[in-house]
């Protein structure tokens, strides 16, 4: 038994087929070494990597655990290197045959990332193409969106009941796409309010959004010929603190009992507080945000909810702003391409042996 065990040790086989090559798609300064595991891999502690510049004197440059057969070494570009791999068990070291000489260099293009640039080119072309045409006045069709059609009824209902309308744009800054989308919809709601002579309440958290919103509302009143009906006090700034703002809006809901609450824009945790209070006052609620984690509360507690991209589309639809419409159209084509690519790639993946997933790394 002991003898057998000793033979086992002395016969410790070295790793074989050591291959060193310049690491592809990198900025130079690295060589990859690959080898076949030693047949005794299971008993080994680790492998050590030895390097030489002249093929004679080898020095240790690194180590790697047993069972692994690939190592990347840091090198100087333009120099020749030879590699040997050592199987190590306790203090026993068995050297492999040396590799062929190898030299590292920098590449100009990372071929692994080419797929990104192909995709960028395709999506970019569509988006820019439609944006360009939209600016030149071409009109695009966008389907009707349920929440938007409810706006008319909502304003009408408020007028009949003689109650105000609350429009809450959320807590986002002006850079958020959702906030911009919300301001577009606000403009349209304000027009309806001006026509029906319904009181509008529009409280804000961010001073800049507030300034922009006041301009928009004023303009809407002017556009429908009722500049006299615009009440500057209807658009106002409350505070820049999240929960203080939520508390204030809650207060409005309970005191003023608006017939309709619009909760459209960029929301975080306060979405639940607002939607719940609104629901308990019996108001019709129209909500919309692109914050996925807040959407469940809106969907359960509100009558209509604009989900994610629907909010952007709604703002494009209602404002007829060419830049927005063009982008929505371009994105639609993007979705179509994704759908077609998914189906085509699946057919290739199922019917042929072509490694289609590698194209999507």
């Amino acid at each position, binding site marked *: 038994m002991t003898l057998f065990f000793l033979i086992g040790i002395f016969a410790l086989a070295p790793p074989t087929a050591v291959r060193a090559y310049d690491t592809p798609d990198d900025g130079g300064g690295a060589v990859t070494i690959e080898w076949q595991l030693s047949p005794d891999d299971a008993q080994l502690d680790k492998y050590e990597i030895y390097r030489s510049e002249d093929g004679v004197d080898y020095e240790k440059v690194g180590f790697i655990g047993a069972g692994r057969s690939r190592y990347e070494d840091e090198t100087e570009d333009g120099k020749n290197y030879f590699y040997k791999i050592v199987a190590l068990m306790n203090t026993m070291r068995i050297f492999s045959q040396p590799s062929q000489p190898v030299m590292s260099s920098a590449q100009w293009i990372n071929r692994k990332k080419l797929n990104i640039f192909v995709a960028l080119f395709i999506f970019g072309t569509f988006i820019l193409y439609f944006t360009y045409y939209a600016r030149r006045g071409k009109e695009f069709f966008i389907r009707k969106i349920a929440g938007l059609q409810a706006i008319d009824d909502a304003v009408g209902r408020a007028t009949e009941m003689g109650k105000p309308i609350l429009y809450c744009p959320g807590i986002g800054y002006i850079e958020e796409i959702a906030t911009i989308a919300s301001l577009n919809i606000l403009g349209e709601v304000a027009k309806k309010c001006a026509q029906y002579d319904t009181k509008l309440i529009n409280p804000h958290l961010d001073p800049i959004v507030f300034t922009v919103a006041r301009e928009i509302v004023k303009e809407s009143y002017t556009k429908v010929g009722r500049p006299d009906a615009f009440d500057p006090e209807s658009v106002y700034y409350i505070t820049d603190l999240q929960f203080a703002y939520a508390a204030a809006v809650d207060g409005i809901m309970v005191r003023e009992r608006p017939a309709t609450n619009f909760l459209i824009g960029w929301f975080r945790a306060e979405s639940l507080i607002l939607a719940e209070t609104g629901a308990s006052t019996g108001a019709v609620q129209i909500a919309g945000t692109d914050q996925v984690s807040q959407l469940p509360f809106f969907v359960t507690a509100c009558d209509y909810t604009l989900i994610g991209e629907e909010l952007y589309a709604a703002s494009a639809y209602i404002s007829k702003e060419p830049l927005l419409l063009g982008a929505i159209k371009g994105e639609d084509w993007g*979705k179509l391409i994704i759908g077609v690519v998914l189906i085509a790639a699946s057919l290739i993946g199922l019917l042929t042996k072509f490694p289609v*997933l590698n194209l999507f790394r």
Partner: protein
Amino acid sequence: MNISSDPWIWISALLSLAIFSFLYRDNPFYKFAEHIFVGVANGWAVTFYWHNILVPSLFDPLFRQGQILYIIPFIIGMLYLTRFIPRVSWLVRIPIGIYMGYYVGVSIPATIQALIIKQAQGTILTPENFQTWHAGNMGIVWSVILFIGVLCTLSYFYFSKEHRGILGTASRIGIIFVMIGFGAAFGYTVMARISLLIGRLQFLLGPWLGIIQ
């Protein structure tokens, strides 16, 4: 019961209670506590911006070691201040433009790869993807459900056509997937919020009142 005698523990406990008082209604204690929160958070930020960033990365090299080139980022950075000087406020667009340009630029390839290409890769029907579920033969079924779900959800967000016919059916199936996802998010959010309440009560019952360990 072993009520704490540490004044700081008392301060934290009273501040916590001030916030909890919001449950009854908005009140002065709550407002007081919320304003302190914002003030202290910004004071903390100023402290670390100064000690960890501005001094070692800018002022030391510029003023102590005399690396004069650091004057460039210093001047560009100071342009942020012009935001509050109406006549030259447009200058603030220079640092914003530089920072935002880079930020937006790097996001483009990153978005395409991580959010589009890789997500597509996980959806494609191939024998390799069937294995990722570790569900044996059911893997095929899960992959097919996922595939159909993704296509249908995409069609719900397709705005260029009315949702009638096949597109109508697909988008109705899509919204089912979306709602199941929202339901899951809802269920998990319940856990999240209660966990935070538990954390707070553990503090009040523990270090403050000394009722629990």
